[in-house]
């Protein structure tokens, strides 16, 4: 999914505001700037897109992010 809407509104939230499709179901989120795991009521930032750092990602994320010990840049191949 995209990390924000087209106008920059965060989509990764403390609590969804739209009607839920399903509760407690998502464990991995891949966005256009980050890879995150959701576990135990927190969002773990595991990887960032090239050029982004954790502070920049947090700035466009409404929910608080927990930074993984092994936070790394997304690499392909």
């Amino acid at each position: 999914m995209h990390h924000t809407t087209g106008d920059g509104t965060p989509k990764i939230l403390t609590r969804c505001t739209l009607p839920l499709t399903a509760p407690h179901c998502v464990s991995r989120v891949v966005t256009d700037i980050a890879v995150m795991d959701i576990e135990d009521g927190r969002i773990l930032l595991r990887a960032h897109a090239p050029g982004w750092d954790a502070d920049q990602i947090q700035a466009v994320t409404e929910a608080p992010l927990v930074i993984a010990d092994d936070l790394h840049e997304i690499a392909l191949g």
Partner: protein
Amino acid sequence: VTGPERLHPTVMAMIVAREFQDGDVVNLGIGLPLECANVLPPEREILLHSELGLLGFGPVIEDHTLADPYVTMVGNLPVTKLPGMVFMSHDESFAMIRGGHLDVAVLGGLQVDVEGNLANAQFEGKPAGNLGGAPDLAYGAKRRSC
């Protein structure tokens, strides 16, 4: 929207798809998730499932003049027929989902929160983007990402 460059949907799909294991049955939702159908290396044996009743299909066909209009995944997108693929009825397709026979569901997301709650439907206006099979997929599949 400011900030450094964002990943192209194809790259996002590659990140998601590299988590797939050979032999996995994978359902791809409308929107960004279905990009995954186009980035699977042919040597991988990933069985793509669509709630419309397809199992084991290939990439989305961009040129609709080459497409079989009866072989479509969600979003009415025509897909490539592959040897060995299976056609099934809608009820059998949902029996696969509800019976726990899907390994991975890649769901589109409008909002996700810290509890793993997912909102991915727009209830007004659009025929596509409504709830569809998402609630079933969110519980039926062994692994869920979005």
